[in-house]
């Protein structure tokens, strides 16, 4: 049971990671990070529900709740930044943002 949930969480996390690396649209990249959060939330709840030792507890759920709060904050700021960037650059291509480049 635990293994199934953990594996599912890992798959979601890795898919999110791959998406983050591969996709060039900034919004999709942020969606991918949200997907990685989903994988982690599932993992957290699963570990709380089916602990390797001791009785099940609600701690996993509480952590997941905090994670949702963090995800919400991150989404708010990230989207604000995306809006700002789009306003200045008229593009959402991550590869077009190369201001740090020094050549």
């Amino acid at each position, binding site marked *: 049971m635990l293994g199934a*949930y953990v*594996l599912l969480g890992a798959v979601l996390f*890795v898919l999110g990671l791959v998406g983050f690396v591969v996709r060039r649209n900034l919004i*999709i990249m*942020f969606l991918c990070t949200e997907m990685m959060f989903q994988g982690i*939330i599932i993992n957290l*709840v699963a570990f709380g*529900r089916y602990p390797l030792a001791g009785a099940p507890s609600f701690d996993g759920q509480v952590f997941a709740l905090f994670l949702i709060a963090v*995800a919400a904050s991150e989404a708010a700021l990230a989207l604000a930044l995306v809006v700002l960037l789009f306003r200045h650059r008229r593009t959402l291509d991550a590869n077009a943002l190369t201001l740090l480049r020094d050549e």
Partner: protein
Amino acid sequence: MAGLLTIILALGAVGLFLALPGGQARAVRAGQIGLAASGVGLLAATLGWLFPWPGANFFAGCALVALFAAVRVITHPRPVYSALYFVLLILAAAALLVQMQAEFLAAALVIVYAGAILVTYVFVIMLAQQARPLVHDIRSHEPLLGCLAGFLLLWSIAVRLFAAPVPPAVPAADLPAAGTVAAVGTSLLTTYVIAMQLAGLLLLAALVGAIAIARRRPLRDPLLEGEE
């Protein structure tokens, strides 16, 4: 077991590579088939490993939906669809949470994510919407390396996971309290009260920050101001 796992994951990785935007249409189709095959195989392996498990069918269903949605999120060339598939992913995840007796969390997830965050995403996507598909949506960045990395990562996790000692076959006892909302709330406001306050502060800061950043100002590029 490990060999089978490797084959499944490799299949999935190749499928994903083909399905990512930027390939030929036929390759995309083939990739989607490969992905489906690998997802099913993976679940079969999981279920086979945990054979006597009451909720297995429900889990498998939800997991299939979630995986499908997740793959579509990262492979769909149009951001709006990606966002919508993400809603689907949230719903499937919520269902799984319900299965784990986390009803409150499931509700919160749907409300916060599908209700609030995703709507914001869609707004932003609409804001930046262009008439025709853009190059950065239909071209991927280093898809081969990305898929290879994902494969290796997942492979190392899965192998470790399957090699681990099998946990007790008997399903664990149910959670003590029936009303999970009360339990979670009690826990939040006693043990984790400080953390909760901090989370509130964080949300506030994010709120202020987001407003400050996105406020419309005269067009001055802060990154360029440092240069003379």
